[in-house]
């Protein structure tokens, strides 16, 4: 049976829908799912002045911003990630990009980072179901740590609600299965080789659920032969450097992605922690050694 493929770009990533079924339905569904991803992008974009997230950040140190149920639930989710990682995962840490410029190929000064650390403090943020308040001026939050995975889940749910039974959503390499292939043989998913991200280091067959990968190759720079990646520890302001990539299978892409990121942040302790989660994983050390329970 043929595949219906729908490609576009959102959240700075290539987005792909692979689907099987009747064309009339699939085309309708693709437009709705794409619109959903774009809705999430616009609502939580750090780059659009009109976005809710930007309003929250602009109000930092000034006043609380009213939020809806979706935003409150995502803040709750972020809070849980913060607790589970004992503060290493912190949605206020995006401000570190002001010190870390991966294009410059130079390290930030210790002072630059020290100056930003007081602005990184999720525990100081006051929030409830109705509003959120960032207590210090220039503080900011962003959902970059899980927005893409959340959008993949939401898009897949749109397909399911419209009656699409066979397909997958691929948002920049984060995958959520809508339903198995018509012939029930599963979807072949490649896992990137951290050293050569255009190539697959492993293949896995997925019938349902999701797979997300967190890797040190997505944004990084090499300085004095040391690898500095975009995944930063919120307490120190410095990147992790233990795992090259972590891929996780879970029913939801959002959860798979967070577990992968938290494992990256856990560094050498990450593997033991990940094993306790009892989820399928493939983890690759920076030296190339692999661990997997697939």
């Amino acid at each position, binding site marked *: 049976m043929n595949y219906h493929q729908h490609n576009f770009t959102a959240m700075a990533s290539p987005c792909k829908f692979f689907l099987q079924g009747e064309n009339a339905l699939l085309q309708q569904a693709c437009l709705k799912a794409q619109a959903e991803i774009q809705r999430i992008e616009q609502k939580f974009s750090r780059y659009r002045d009109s976005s809710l997230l930007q309003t929250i950040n602009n109000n930092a140190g000034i006043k609380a911003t009213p939020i809806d149920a979706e935003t409150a639930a995502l803040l709750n989710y972020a809070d849980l990630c913060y607790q589970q990682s004992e503060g290493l995962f912190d949605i206020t840490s995006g401000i570190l990009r002001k010190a870390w410029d991966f294009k410059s190929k130079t390290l930030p000064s210790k002072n630059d980072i020290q100056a930003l650390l007081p602005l990184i403090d999720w525990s100081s943020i006051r929030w409830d179901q109705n509003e959120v308040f960032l207590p210090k001026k220039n503080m900011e939050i962003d959902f970059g740590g899980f927005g893409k995975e959340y959008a993949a889940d939401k898009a897949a749910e749109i397909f399911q609600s419209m009656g699409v039974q066979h397909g997958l959503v691929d948002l920049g390499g984060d995958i959520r299965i809508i339903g198995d292939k018509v012939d029930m043989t599963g979807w072949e998913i490649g896992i990137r080789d951290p050293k050569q991200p255009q190539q697959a280091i492993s293949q896995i067959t997925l019938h349902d659920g999701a797979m997300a990968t967190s890797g040190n190759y997505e944004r990084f720079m090499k300085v004095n032969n040391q690898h500095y990646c975009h995944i930063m520890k919120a307490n120190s302001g410095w990147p992790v450097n233990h795992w090259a990539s972590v891929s996780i299978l879970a029913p939801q892409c959002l959860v798979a992605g967070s577990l992968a990121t938290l494992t990256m942040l856990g560094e050498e302790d990450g593997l033991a922690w990940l094993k*306790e989660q009892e989820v399928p994983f493939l983890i690759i050390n920076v030296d190339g050694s692999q661990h997997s329970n697939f």
Partner: protein
Amino acid sequence: MKKLSAFSALSAAALAIPTQAEVAPTDTSLSYRYSSYQEADAPRERTFTNETGRYQIDIQQFGYRTPIGESWYIASELQFETMSGASPTQTYKNNDGQSTLIMSGASIEEQRVDIKIAPKKYFPHGTAGGLLALSKENDYQSLAFGVDGTLDIFAKHTTLIGSLSVSNDVLSPTDPGLSTARTAADGRKKRSFSIYEGINQVLDKYSTLQVGIGYTQLSGYLSDPYKFEDRRPESRDQVTLSVQHKQFANVLDGAALHSSYRYYYDDWGLASHTVDIKWAQQFNLGRYRFIATPLVRYYTQTKADFYSLEQNPADDQLNSSDYRLSSYGAFTFGFNSELKLEKWAFHFDWQQYTSRETLALFGASDDEAPALVNFSTFTAGVDYKF
């Protein structure tokens, strides 16, 4: 790292994120349309003078639609029309029983400007919208205001639709001193009040059905001051019942069959039936998408009670020889096409309309109505989304 299962905790939190409602469109779009409307000449063997040329209208339309904030969407439209040509002034039956058509002479040369603004607010279970429309030409001015809303119920399988609008028009016929009708009409008002209630039901994954009832009340100066012996009532109550069905079909790259039926009745004694069928066929051609939509429409109406071809009816008697109030039937054949390429969409539409006394299905009369018009329209347009 905590020892309790992050996996279970995160999964539970992820499942607690609420499902979102229908969202406002997020694209800003600009559009332009050029339409040419051309009426066929009147039949020379029935016209009183050798003036047979009828209306030619050129329409230019500019559209701008944009989201405002999270949940608002505003659509606006600006339209310029240039009309030229002649229109029927009177039809009467001569002593031989033949209908004779008096045309106005090619004196009409007019411009019209329309402005429309329609904001819409999106809620979790519906929408609320407004409409402000202003139309101006040298002998007519119209101001309309409307509100509309939709409400989704039964897990969005059913949508209730309602709208309400009012308009206030002012007539100012050119050369008001030229006839008593024009003098009488000058400065007169025409008002309308409309209400529509509908329900849209998702039947299954591939089809929807909408039924609706509409009521319009017109009041004020409803006659045509440019026509001879045109004296209509000062009020008109109109009722419309409509059914629309949409069926998606898995033909080639996807298709949809739209069919609709409309029944109309008013207290001038005029009733009409309209049947509309169109097939929208999609073709995927690499990066392009092409949608071709052939359509056919049949329309039939009975005449108004006071429609007559009497040349000199009594002055205290309601009367009109306007062909639009006669009994007739009409066919429209058309072909709409749309070519989409990423942010661009190009439109080419064509329609041919033919009306005749003999095409009437009900209440056909032997009287000729030579003013009945045939016309064709051609539209070319482009949309850009960003």
